[in-house]
């Protein structure tokens, strides 16, 4: 907002001197002078009181309304400011200063179309100053006309080349247009003009973050934070830059700072929720998403992400109503239908899942994920032909994804179509060679085809990737048996047996320990001890059983035995952290 008060006061004084009610006018003039002085010292409340008095004393004087409008704007009393400025302009339509002020008020109060129209007219009448051009550019940008906004902002920068804020704004518009190079240049220019302009540091950081220059971005954000330590947006943008570099954990810390600084900054809460969700902390994310959704009930994306977080925590039932709200807002969002289908699947509601996947495919018929999901859902209904058709579509549409060929491989195997199974499993394993289960299944299929050499190779790969799984050893043993390698087969069986025995013994030990814990909680210590000893008998290396036995012994006052068991538990824990 410009400061027209000195001019205004002089003019007002002239008008007042010529009025009929000399005394009142004199008082009004004095009030104007007092208001002007108050404004000059930054005392907006004092200025308001004086200007309101002046307007009461001389309501027909345009300059009084104009000055009051300016002060009210400064106080954030936008509606009243607009009223006063409009009153002034009714009295004196040619008051360009009032018009410029009104345009700025419109601009600042979220009425960009009114502001832009007024700026446009004023600019046609006489070119606007750099500052007003900048305000106009922001309004045009807010109206979605980026290229025109950029052109106006460029004029602003030319008109006021030393204005760092305008360079900063210019950079922002470049950034919005995706012109990162010019954006970075503009922000750097802004900082050349004013090294202490926190927003320019923040914006430059954001650009560098977008360019994945994480360290450089961090330096800019750090400077911005130092210059404007209470600005939550700096922390939020810093977080955004880290997210762009897949540094969610670091980003979370900055988002948390932003959210703490400004609990009303919904964007920060939302970004924090997303980062937490990506980091597997869905339950924390849900609380934040819920806040965001409460603030922005029409935000389909937030509703969707909240729904997804709920599904991730097994709460599909709660997610579905949110998805339905989001779908009402964005019915043509295929991903949303996919998410909803997944939620239904989690609820084991296969019919509704199929409906959603099909609805998604109507919108996005070439979406491989939707075809894949539909294929799975159909398989759950034992509709093998339908499932295979969908999965084949998924594979055709996204040949680089190992999911569809892997699942197809299993389906063809189940259908006894081993050639097709092998072809698909091999494709899947070329795309994801670390899939131990895949190698195991491929080996099993080769085994069933009597292709023993191929089977053995695949199974050995599975064993390499899944060393603790007995299954591949078992299948390999049967292959070696068929190859006449009886000793090797026996060795594989022995390994499998040992792995199975270890697993079974551990399972027994866990069960017995759990039973012992229940007895201990009921105070049946002797029975609990028996269970713990049974657990240790099954698996002497199960630390929990020793630990709990120590507790039970201690409860019986058998402290020496307790200490011994505790020591064993600690030793086992150290050896098998």
């Amino acid at each position: 907002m410009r400061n027209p008060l000195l001019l205004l006061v002089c003019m007002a004084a002239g008008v007042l001197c010529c009025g009929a009610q000399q005394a009142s006018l004199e008082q009004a003039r004095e009030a104007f002078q007092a208001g002007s002085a108050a404004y000059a010292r930054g005392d907006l409340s004092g200025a308001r009181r004086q200007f309101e008095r002046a307007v009461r004393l001389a309501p027909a004087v345009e300059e009084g309304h104009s000055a009051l409008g300016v002060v009210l704007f400064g106080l954030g009393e936008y509606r009243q400011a607009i009223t006063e400025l409009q009153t002034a302009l009714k009295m004196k339509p040619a008051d360009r200063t009032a018009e410029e002020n009104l345009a700025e008020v419109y601009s600042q109060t979220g009425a960009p179309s009114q502001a832009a129209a007024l700026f446009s007219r004023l600019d046609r009448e006489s070119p606007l100053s750099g500052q007003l051009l900048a305000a106009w550019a922001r309004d045009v940008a807010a109206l979605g006309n980026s290229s025109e906004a950029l052109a106006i902002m460029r004029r602003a920068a030319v008109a006021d080349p030393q204005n760092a804020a305008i360079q900063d704004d210019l950079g922002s518009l470049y950034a919005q247009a995706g012109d990162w190079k010019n954006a970075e240049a503009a922000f750097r220019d802004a900082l050349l003009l004013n090294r202490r302009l926190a927003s320019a540091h923040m914006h430059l950081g954001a650009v560098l973050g977008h360019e994945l220059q994480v360290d450089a971005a961090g330096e800019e954000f750090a400077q911005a934070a130092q210059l404007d330590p209470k600005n939550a947006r700096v922390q939020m943008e810093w977080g955004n830059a880290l997210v762009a570099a897949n540094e969610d954990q670091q980003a979370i810390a900055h988002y948390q700072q932003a959210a703490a600084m400004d609990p009303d900054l919904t964007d920060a809460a939302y970004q924090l929720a997303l980062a937490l969700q990506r980091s597997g902390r869905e339950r924390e994310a849900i609380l934040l998403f819920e806040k965001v959704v409460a603030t922005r009930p029409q935000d389909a994306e937030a509703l969707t992400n909240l729904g997804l977080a709920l599904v991730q925590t097994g709460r599909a039932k709660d997610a579905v109503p949110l998805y339905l709200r989001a779908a009402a807002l964005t019915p043509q969002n295929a991903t949303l239908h996919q998410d909803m289908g997944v939620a239904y699947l989690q609820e084991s509601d296969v019919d509704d899942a199929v409906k959603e996947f099909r609805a998604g495919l109507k919108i996005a018929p070439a979406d491989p994920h939707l075809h894949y999901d539909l294929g799975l859902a159909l398989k759950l209904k034992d509709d093998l032909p339908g499932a295979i058709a969908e999965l084949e579509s998924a594979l055709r549409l996204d040949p680089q994804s190992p999911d569809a060929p892997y699942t197809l491989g299993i389906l063809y195997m189940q259908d006894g179509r081993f050639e097709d199974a092998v072809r698909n499993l091999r494709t899947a394993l070329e795309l994801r060679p670390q899939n131990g289960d895949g190698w195991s299944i491929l080996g099993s299929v080769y085994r069933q085809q009597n292709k023993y050499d191929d089977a053995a190779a695949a199974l050995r790969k599975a064993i390499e990737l899944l060393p603790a799984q007995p299954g591949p050893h078992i299948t390999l043993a049967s292959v070696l048996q068929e190859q006449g390698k009886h000793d090797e087969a026996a060795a594989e069986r022995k390994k499998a047996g040992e792995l199975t025995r270890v697993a079974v013994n551990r399972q027994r030990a866990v069960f017995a320990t759990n039973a012992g814990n229940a007895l201990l909680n009921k105070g049946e210590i002797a029975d609990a001890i028996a269970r713990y000893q049974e657990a240790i008998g099954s698996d002497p290396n199960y630390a929990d059983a020793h630990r709990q036995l120590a507790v039970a012994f201690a409860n019986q006052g058998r402290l020496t035995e307790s200490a011994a068991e505790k020591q064993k538990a600690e030793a086992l824990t150290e050896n098998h952290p």
Partner: protein
Amino acid sequence: MNRREFLGSLSRSALVLSFADVLRMATPPWAAAQTAPQSRPGAQQSYEAKPMPPPPGPASPIAGTPLGVQFVDVAEHAGLHAKTIFGGEKTNKYLLETTGCGVAFYDYDQDGWLDIFLVNGWRLEGFAKGSEPTCHLFRNNHDGTFTDVTEKAGLARSGWGQACCVGDYDNDGVDDLFVTYYGQNVLFRNNGNGTFTDVTAKAGLLQEKTRWNSGCAFLDYDRDGHLDLFVGNYIDLDLKMAPLPESGPCLYKGILVACGPPGLAPGKNILYHNNGDGTFTDVSEKAGMWTTYGNYALSAAVADFDNDGWPDIYVANDSTAATLYQNQKDGTFRDIAIEAGVGLSPDGKPQAGMGVTIGDYNRDGWFDLAKTNFAGDTDSLYAGINAGNFEDRTYQAGLGVNTRYLGWGIGFLDMDNDGWLDLLVANGHVYPEVNGAKTEAPYAEHKYLYRNLRNGRFEDVSAKAGPGIMAAVPARGCAFGDFDNDGDIDVVVNCVNALPQLLRCDTTWKRHWIRFRLVGVKSNRTAIGARVRVTAKTQPDQPRPAVLMDEVRSGGSYYSQSDLRLHFGLDQASVAEVVEVQWPSGQVDTFRNLKADRLYVVHEGAKEPTAYLLPDMKKV
């Protein structure tokens, strides 16, 4: 877990549900529950299975031919009015309420007509005196109907009934009945006059603690001519200690369900040795019953899998590897399930076994095994390939197409008398709670019926086999036998909290068959373990006659006892060229040129069998 990861895990479970996958879906581990009945057709939304062509492979000579067989539920007409009570009908607190009961096709009065014994159950809240559910014995009236003779027979026993099996433990010439319980098992001695006597205590079968006894089978494991007794044990369950669904919470697809069996202590299987004087001795530990990879035994079936003349025991275990107790011929057994290839899924993972059946479906002279598993998994088919070795042929045989339903009872049966064993699976979900959810599989489910295509493969013909197959019921045990003596195999099904099904086989085929009732002399009188090989030219253009085989078997399917008479479909053969009976004693009796379509009663060592015409058992 992001959306894709969730779907990834889902894909695995949707395709091949391993134990680990089940655990992942139900946290903590899954459990079971069962409920109520809605047993009649139409109570559940039925799913129309999409037919799939049989898997590729050798051409089937019967591909595309009419099925010619319909199964019709005649239970109501037959007077099988006894509802099986078992646990809560809507929700279950404990796994104990879920497992249901077995059934026996059992000619207790030796009149040549199969009677039906239905095990019954209990509820946690108990019953007022006088209104307790009991087991039921239905006597065959020879006209398609039955009469409830439970009280008269002395079989009105209540409790958490589980399985039943039949055998003449005291070699007095009439088959006795053994019923397992969560609680004390009962040995009912058949008095031969239509009544039974509880001889449990006298026989030394009282148990000191409450056990969850499960599947049972009589067998003569030491071939001493006296029937011994195997009793599986499921969970060492103490209801006072057992977790409630909400205490886990124990979830299945987001639904609170009963907890277990993982997380609960497994039961220990029992082997009772028959002392030959009407008593038994528990030899479990000494005989190697407790050194197994898997546990949580449900059903058991006995056969000489390695053709060494000694009976072996196969046990379908829940959630862990199955057990194959190989008879070591010295009074002990060794679990060879894993090395024999019958313990795990094709990719080496434990499955949740429920029921088991034995037969030579590919006519290669080695017994094969089929086992039912949990929902989301296939049933299993293991083909015997040589002594002590099997191959998992589930997928090649075409059984991989169905993964949605949860199987319990199962049986090889030659439904169309073509000389090739077909396969029937009785399904029903374990958790009644699924009824309130939109899960892909309901609580009451139809059966799977697979026709043997004679090329190593099966075809799912469920939808073509009549309303008895497609009716949705919460099935558990089922038994196989010809209750109306019309020359084809019928099925009786025990359902939970529902009336039973009696699936009469109606066939349009005019094919031949032959049937044997064996009577041991040196061997146990029931001839359990005796093997019959029938050589016959089932097709006129066959280059070589077919050799069909089976053994007299106690127990099997899920908790059930099928007809002890051995039935063979002969298709076009009006004569069985050679019939060889290999008795447990080692005696081998051979008969030639036996006419088809007759029942032969064969006494061990007899020169000729006695032939009877059905249905009226008219001596020829």
